[in-house]
């Protein structure tokens, strides 16, 4: 069932391509804005690269989160989904995983202009870097898709989600930025594995809470 639900999310996205186009162009616009707002000596950007990257990821993810519930409410498709014999927790997991796939895809596309325009060199050990990006994205989309589901039926939900989400995500933001920074400077994993543990525990805690509590927030 989970497979069907994820396929459904991605199919809707594939038909409209709304999130994909808006998220991808927004991330490129952000990169160019970074280049304008900070001095363009390449040394500076190397220092700030991890922070800039996650700032881009964070703001881009909000666009995707808004889309993923707005098509649920358009023809009240969400009610039809809730009334069908599907476990609510699985609906949450499908939202989370599909959002994660989409965000990761966008980030890897945006990585090209990111490295090119900001003249950033990535270290050779790029497997670790990919691991950090996957963990960070997963943590962000986990709480993100939960809270957007919660705010979906509120007024001003578009504004409400980032206001609540960003402070709650503070451990994820710090951990992602710190671990990416350490990795880019070529420090061994043992120096910054604390941050990996923070990310993993965040995913475990809020993944379980989201799975258990989603039922309560989806009921009208």
């Amino acid at each position: 069932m989970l497979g069907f639900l994820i396929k459904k999310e991605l199919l809707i996205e594939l038909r409209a391509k709304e999130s994909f186009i808006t998220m991808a162009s927004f991330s490129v616009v952000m990169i160019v804005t970074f280049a304008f707002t900070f001095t363009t000596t390449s040394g500076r950007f190397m220092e700030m690269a991890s922070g800039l990257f996650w700032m881009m990821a964070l703001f881009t993810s909000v666009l995707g989160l808004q889309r993923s519930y707005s098509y649920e409410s358009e023809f009240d498709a969400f009610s039809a989904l809730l009334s069908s014999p599907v476990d609510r927790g699985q609906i949450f997991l499908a939202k989370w995983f599909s959002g994660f796939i989409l965000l990761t895809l966008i980030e890897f596309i945006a990585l090209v202009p990111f490295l090119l325009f900001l003249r950033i060199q990535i270290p050779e050990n790029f497997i670790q870097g990919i691991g950090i990006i996957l963990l960070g994205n997963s943590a962000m989309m986990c709480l993100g898709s939960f809270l957007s589901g919660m705010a979906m039926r509120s007024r001003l939900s578009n504004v409400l989600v980032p206001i609540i989400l960003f402070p709650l995500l503070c451990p994820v933001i710090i951990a992602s930025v710190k671990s990416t920074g350490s990795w880019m400077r070529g420090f061994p994993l043992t120096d910054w594995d604390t941050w990996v543990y923070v990310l993993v525990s965040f995913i475990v805690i809020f993944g379980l809470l989201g799975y258990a509590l989603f039922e309560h927030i989806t009921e009208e």
Partner: protein
Amino acid sequence: MISLEVTDVKKSFFRKPVLDGVSFEIKERDAVSLAGANGSGKTTLLKILSGITSKDSGEIHNPFQKLLYLGHAPGVYAGLSPIENMRLKCNLYGQSSDEHLLVETLSDVGLENHKKKPCRVLSQGMLQRLKFATASLIRWDILLFDEPFAALDEDGKSLAESFFRSWNESGKTLLFTDHDSERSLDLASRQLAIEDGGLKERELS
């Protein structure tokens, strides 16, 4: 014989009770129509029965395996076509989705020329027909249908009535809301009405 039992269900919005202790029973093979003024809580009751809205208190015992809820809104994804939406519904209800069957069902309700368009461009009447296609495709045990005759033209209304007649003939269990008491009399075996938050059984004359 199994039956859906609702005991003393209460629900309030803005601290005002909409449903104030509703109790009734729907037996297998019952075709029940639900009447009531606008805002009397018909839709709320249907949504509570299908688990979309939570109740404040009371008991619902539902032994029917598969429940299909067709709400007032189209209840489909606007970006997907009718055929994709139908296939999705089949998956959600654990049925196989044979392409021929999907096309055939859509032809039955007169949507064969619109099956590949996104639902966003379909008219209200077409979306209403799509609900009937869903109802005939999904093998439900109990159907909750909110305003089945809304937005339909004369042709659509007689199509809808023929669907109801065939369900009655095959002894299906269903609950629907309708304003037209004459039509309800024709299509339902029992009539219920909500008044002042409570439920009354109307005698069929």
